[in-house]
């Protein structure tokens, strides 16, 4: 009958799973950002081969389901590498990073394509190399435009990290179901509790990304955005296509 006592006693068991969720989200996001810039730059390249490779990888990961990719990575990676893979979290980070990285690549490509052509002409006039152009002119201007859609994607990635529980990685979602099944605990309470935790984590991501956006815009001397912390979701595919329309 001592519901509160039982619950309080169970709470410390969430400590490690919380860090698994945070680790998968942060690790996945960083890897996704790397994938996004690599694929995004390739997809905007002059060379057909680079563009073709990037497009294939992007469409492949966007066209299939994250759940399928996760299971596929868990089954295939150990087979392909001929090793037993005990660190499921590494597979989880790879799968999350590739999937959301493919979406983010479109964001990167679109934002770069939306940089005014005069800027590129100026780079040519100054005979900048490709990397000078990208590093000094294009990316600093494209970056603030990327942040809102990337923020939406980071929150999607946090939500997607709950899927690692399906491949038996003990994250928040997994742990809540383990604890909830114990006879002295309430399943609904534990699920409700982690829903609130996920919401708080989403809020933290949104707040952090707004901070980054303000800083990036200030760096360009632009007006900082004024909206509330939990911004409206930016439909990612639409965003990139709108940017592509500007390009033409």
């Amino acid at each position: 009958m001592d519901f509160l006592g039982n619950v309080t006693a169970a709470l410390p068991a969430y400590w490690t799973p919380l860090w698994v969720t945070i680790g998968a989200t942060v690790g996945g996001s960083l890897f996704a950002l790397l994938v996004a810039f690599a694929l995004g730059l390739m997809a905007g390249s002059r060379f057909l081969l680079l563009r073709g490779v990037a497009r294939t990888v992007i469409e492949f990961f966007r066209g299939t389901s994250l759940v399928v990719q996760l299971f596929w990575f868990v089954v295939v990676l150990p087979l392909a590498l001929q090793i037993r893979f005990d660190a499921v979290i590494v597979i989880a980070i790879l799968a999350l990073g590739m999937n959301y990285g493919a979406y983010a690549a479109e964001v990167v490509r679109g934002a770069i394509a939306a940089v005014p052509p005069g800027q590129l002409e100026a780079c040519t006039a100054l005979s900048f190399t490709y990397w000078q152009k990208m590093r000094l002119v294009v990316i600093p201007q494209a970056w603030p435009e990327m942040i809102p859609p990337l923020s939406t994607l980071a929150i999607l990635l946090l939500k997607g990290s709950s899927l690692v529980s399906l491949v038996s990685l003990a994250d928040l979602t997994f742990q809540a179901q383990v604890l909830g099944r114990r006879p002295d605990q309430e399943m609904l309470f534990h699920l409700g509790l982690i829903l609130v935790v996920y919401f708080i984590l989403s809020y933290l991501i949104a707040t952090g990304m707004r901070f980054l956006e303000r800083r990036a815009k200030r760096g360009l001397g632009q007006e900082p955005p004024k909206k509330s912390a939990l911004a409206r979701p930016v439909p990612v595919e639409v965003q990139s296509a709108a940017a592509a329309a500007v390009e033409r």
Partner: protein
Amino acid sequence: MGWNWETAQELWPLLMEGLRILLLVTLISSLIALALGLVVALTDRSAPRAVTMPLFAVMEFIRNTPVLVQAVFVWTAVTMWLGTAASPMWTGAIVLGVHYASYTAEAYRAGIDGIPKGQWEAITALSLPKPRAWIAVLLPQALRRSTPALGNYVIALFKEVPILSAIGVTEMVRQVDGYAGLNYTGALEGFTIAGLIFLVVSYPVALLMRKLEKRLAN
């Protein structure tokens, strides 16, 4: 443990059955998401703040928490309430539909916000009654703007149906998992083919949406 065509052949009927359920759930969920999203977007425009504020909070909460946990939560709650196991397919379809309604509502809202100010002024100038203004003037323009985003959300929803395998919806992933659990093989073949099926179904629709988007942008 390499690729085995016989296993793939054995898996095929299971995958097709999984695909049938997958498409069925997608259909039910999309209808819920498209209808409920519109209701939410219109309520957000016309209802008093006492209604829109809690509605906004609920939608934010649904949008910012994982659908997997939501599905398990609702399934557990409904099962407790009924006293017998709830239907995984219907529970899952409804949860996924409501989850995506929190996205489609924003797509509708963006479409309504994109209507030029002159249209609102014209409605006032003609003193059109509110229902007539929405049906004849505002919604046709808003829906046109929202369509590509809504289409993309339906594709995204389709790809998230396998999450419902967690509550026992027997779509493709669940079928492959079941087969692999019984036969200790087939995971490689099953998940590869399932992935390809996803690509074959979703890619043409995605291309269509992108075409539509470009046409509407001009």
